[in-house]
């Protein structure tokens, strides 16, 4: 995981060769940011869509590159990489986005890549490391065959972004 130190060791290594999701305790939705993988609670995601034309908003923070129309609804696009690490992914039409309910808001989340559903066993989840760039919003670190995945508290992340940007 990008900027991710090794976990605390409180979790078992992920087993190899299991059928995906066969014995998952929880489902997350995984995305890629740089070299790292991050995930958030899968029930927050209503759909994965391809972005249409982006309408950019003046006077917007950089984590909000614009809005898109999806089935008649205008949705703000949230650039997760910019929000967490100030490294935006410059979303283009056709890029995939996850439509996410985060608290009272509905946003289209973009990242460097969308991996999709991730089954996680409870015993493969450990506490987040201290000092990670995104540790403020990390709930835990999980592991699977592909390595570590940072588990994000998405509603808190979106609320914090809003609070940080609300004009005084």
């Amino acid at each position: 995981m990008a900027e991710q130190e090794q976990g605390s060791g409180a979790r078992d290594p992920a087993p190899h060769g299991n059928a995906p999701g066969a014995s998952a305790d929880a489902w997350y939705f995984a995305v890629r940011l740089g070299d790292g993988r991050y995930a958030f609670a899968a029930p927050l995601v209503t759909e994965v869509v391809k972005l249409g034309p982006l309408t950019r908003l003046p006077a917007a923070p950089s984590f909000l590159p614009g809005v898109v129309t999806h089935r008649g609804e205008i949705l703000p696009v949230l650039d997760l990489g910019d929000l967490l690490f100030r490294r935006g992914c410059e979303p283009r039409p056709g890029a995939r986005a996850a439509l996410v309910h985060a608290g009272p808001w509905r946003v289209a989340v973009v990242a460097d890549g969308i991996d999709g559903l991730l089954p996680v066993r409870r015993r493969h989840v450990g506490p987040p490391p201290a000092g990670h760039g995104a540790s403020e919003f990390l709930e835990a670190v999980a592991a699977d065959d592909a390595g570590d995945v940072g588990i994000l508290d998405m509603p808190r992340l979106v609320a914090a972004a809003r609070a940080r940007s609300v004009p005084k």
Partner: protein
Amino acid sequence: MSPGLPLLLFQVGARVFAAPAADVRRIGGSLVERPEEAVPDTALGRPWDARRGLVVDGGDGAERTVLVDGVLGLRAAEGDELVELPAFARDVISTRALAGFARIDEVPTLVVDLPALVRERRDGEAAPDREETNRHG
């Protein structure tokens, strides 16, 4: 059938915006009789060529001329083509002069409250367009 809300379409830089036509007293050139009435840059950004000016009520008894790159024409928007800004976007942008969107040829086009835009500029409320400063620097 409702005649719809007449919108004036105009361009600032690469972006197309709309504004209620009723907010525009007249369309002029970039040469403004009293330079203090010109509004060269706003939360919408700074125009490239500033070839036209949208003359609006400044709210203080004077007129203000918002300089734009071009006026693209009039378009009537029906009620179902007008949409509010998403709440999250409304909360985080640093201008209160964006009234919402008009769906024009299926593309959401920002509807600008021009009197609010010039008031913001006058009162120094609006931060500069953060998109460019944040994305590139």
